[in-house]
């Protein structure tokens, strides 16, 4: 590694004050600190030693936690393709082909997201003269996981650029943003290009092959929504019977949905993999267990309340189904726990998570326009998190004030 270090040391004066490429210092610095953790030492006064953690390590932990979702998403993309086009029906048949289809679709999306966002980050770092934000390590992976595999690459690039600029850099970078960056990217796509991220046609990659007769590409959320409107069979029946003839198997039974063998955005389908990610986040202390637990609890409670008030079949859906359909699990584990946009007080985290769960189910069940609720619930609660914190902080101040006047 000495060779690399020597190379960097040789180039460094170019980028330092007075050097020819001074304006690119932060771009250089990002590369340098990525390869070598810096040698600067603690100051004369204050803490003389520091904890071994840094922000890069914390962020990469989140990326690692997403890898189960990513790998599963890649394989499932291929699996859904083969199912829909009349290829094999067994889960593990044609493993190599399915993986290859998935890789071909997903990898470019990841590369585009990282490249587009990375360029924007670097431009801002150079213009605004601040270090490159490590937060993008996470955002660049989150965005691909919340879009369908069929999303055009230019839309991925546009959404990433939009989100990084509008949701983050205009506020001053990672740590200053109000909204979750990846959710903003998805919301941008959802409202700007609804044809490519909603409906029944986008969730399964067909390529140049034709789907099997009677195939419907609807998601589970769309199926239960229609069951609610239709009213001829219960929501669970509708799920279990959906596509059975065409695919020769029950796609939306509970186990399948929990495992994630269903159409949907790349990384969101598997509740199991999201829970593996949750275990990593909670185990490492990087994600707040309070938000995750209260998020799932909120969805269950609201699902249960819907049952009590049920006037249609969707409202009568057993609450645990809300956990395994759509992106709720992924959203609660990876989006809601973003420490910057979430509530920052410990009591606030309980309220914040609970309301995300509750709102998700309300939006799903009662809103005809948006079959999936987690995206809007997270963004909505991002906006409300400071209000929750305001009251928690105010309570702290009040306790102090009351003590003084007693």
């Amino acid at each position, binding site marked *: *590694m000495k060779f*690399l*270090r020597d190379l960097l040391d040789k180039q460094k004066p170019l980028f330092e004050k007075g050097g020819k490429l001074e304006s690119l210092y932060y771009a250089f610095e990002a590369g340098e*600190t*990525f*390869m*070598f*953790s*810096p*040698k*600067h*030492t*603690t*100051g*004369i*006064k*204050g*803490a*003389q*030693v*520091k*904890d*071994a*953690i*840094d*922000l*890069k*390590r*914390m962020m*990469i*932990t989140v990326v*690692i936690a997403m890898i189960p979702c990513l790998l599963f998403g890649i394989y499932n993309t291929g699996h859904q393709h083969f199912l829909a086009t009349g290829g094999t029906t067994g889960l593990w048949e044609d493993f190599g082909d399915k993986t290859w289809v998935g890789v071909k679709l997903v990898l470019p999306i990841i590369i585009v997201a990282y490249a587009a966002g990375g360029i924007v980050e670097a431009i801002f770092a150079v213009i605004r003269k601040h*270090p490159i*934000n490590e*937060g993008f390590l996470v955002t660049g992976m989150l965005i691909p996981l919340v879009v369908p595999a069929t999303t055009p690459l230019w839309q991925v690039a546009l959404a990433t650029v939009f989100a990084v600029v509008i949701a983050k850099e205009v506020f*001053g970078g*990672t*740590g*200053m943003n109000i909204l979750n960056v990846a959710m903003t990217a998805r919301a941008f796509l959802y409202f700007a290009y609804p044809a490519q991220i909603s409906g029944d046609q986008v969730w399964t990659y067909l390529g140049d092959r034709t789907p099997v007769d009677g195939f419907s590409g609807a998601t589970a959320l769309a199926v239960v929504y229609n069951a609610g409107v239709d009213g001829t069979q219960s929501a669970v029946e509708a799920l279990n019977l959906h596509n059975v003839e065409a695919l020769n198997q029950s796609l939306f039974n509970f186990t399948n949905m929990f495992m994630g063998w269903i159409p949907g955005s790349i990384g969101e389908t598997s509740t199991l993999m999201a829970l593996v990610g949750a275990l990593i986040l909670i*185990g*490492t*202390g*990087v994600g*707040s267990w309070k938000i995750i637990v209260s998020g799932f609890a909120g969805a269950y409670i609201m699902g249960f309340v819907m049952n009590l008030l049920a006037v249609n079949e969707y409202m009568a859906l057993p609450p645990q189904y809300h956990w395994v359909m759509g992106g709720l699990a992924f959203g609660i584990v990876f989006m809601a726990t973003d*420490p*910057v946009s*979430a509530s*920052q*007080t*410990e*009591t606030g*985290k309980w309220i914040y998570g609970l309301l995300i769960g509750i709102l998700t189910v309300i939006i799903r069940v009662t809103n005809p326009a948006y079959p999936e609720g987690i995206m809007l619930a997270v963004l909505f609660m991002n906006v409300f998190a400071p209000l929750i914190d305001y009251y928690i*902080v105010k309570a*702290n*101040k009040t*306790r*102090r*004030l009351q*003590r*003084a006047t007693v």
Partner: protein
Amino acid sequence: MGRFSKAHSSKTDMSKIVKLKKGFDINMVGKAKQELADFARAQTFAIKPTDFIGLQRPKVLVNEGDTVKAGTPILIDKALDQVIYAAPVSGKVVEVKRGDRRKLLEVSILADATITYEQFGQVDIASLDRDALAAKLAASGIWPNIIQRPFGVVANPADTPKSIFISAFDTHPLAPDCAFALKGQERYLQAGIEALAKLTSGKVHLNIDGSKAVPAVFSNLKGAQMNKFSGPHPAGNVGVQIHHLDPMNKGEIAWTVSPSGVAQIGKFILEGIYDASKVIAVTGSELTKAAYVKTYSGACVSTFVKGNLNSGHVRVVSGNVLTGEKISLEGFLGFYHNQITVIPEGDYYEFMGWAKPTTRLSYHRALGLLSFLTPNKEFVLDSNGRGEERAFVQTGVFESVTPMDILPVYLLKAIMAEDYDEIEELGIYEIVEEDLALCEFVDVSKHPVQELVRKGIELIQYS
């Protein structure tokens, strides 16, 4: 006590027992062995105005070449001129060192072989009124041992504090054992407590480590309320203890004194001299011999360190590694420090240092941080900055190492924004730097937390 402090306290008679859960013990290699080492005695001693936070306009009263006794006035603060800062030893003033714009840095004294003392005469506490006692202490050089809360500055003798707090144990990394350092000083401690009791309108609180048996040196002291605190660091911080006993509110004043300061005050009462001697711990992983040594305030540390090093590239810290100050090999012990710590200097690059699995000490458990698997291990910590400063990202961690009903991140953000009302309402009166020092250690975003705390204090103090 706040809902968030997770502390339990119960009252038994007068004294309180407080069990704290939040915090973090930094367990390091290089604990001082419980013995007095035979290091060569220090030759020079310095009094550094920079040790006394809030000392605004120092004025030197001696010239280079003057001979002084222990207790001879060396400098005063023109803003609080009844308080004398006195020579810790007798000898010759060898240097009055100034920095940029003639800022006074230190006055150093070459010590006599046998120390002679200014004679102030014994003090009969009962016969003096409060103000006369305060004036006598202030004129002797002993007074700067008394610190005022809020702000953590040298107390003003004209104030009457609501209570006086003594933390009789230290939970900082490699901190000295107060009971060992004060062995045999019971008489002086008792006299010191009696003097302090006269200065306050309230109580003198003596806070001891609740996780151990009461050390003999403290067990028979009278005139103070004995409280027991247990839990990880910062349970031994007097600021944390005040928060749980009798929290600081706006407009109130309390005082704090270290146990060695109490003993020095007691000796002044009983014998009429300013004896600045104390037993300090010489600690750290880079020393061949880590032990205690008896010396005086402001000692030059070179005789304890040189020839006692097991490596070449070291940092000498006056005090502990959380709140101390980097000094040179020829540097002087800080007035308030009872410890020096020698650690490796950390100015090295590390290839992929942010991603490699590491057994280095961390409060966190993020990817590759393995130290949580070995909670009882003693660690060698160096001075590497471990990454660069970033905006606040991680939440909830500062709260988990601060056993007080305070929201550190909100307070620090208010200080950054210079929002005076917020700074006040979020509890600046209750803390000094050391109370949030652990936050600086565990911070993922590497903020200079203690510097910010002082900035916040000064914003309020001088507004």
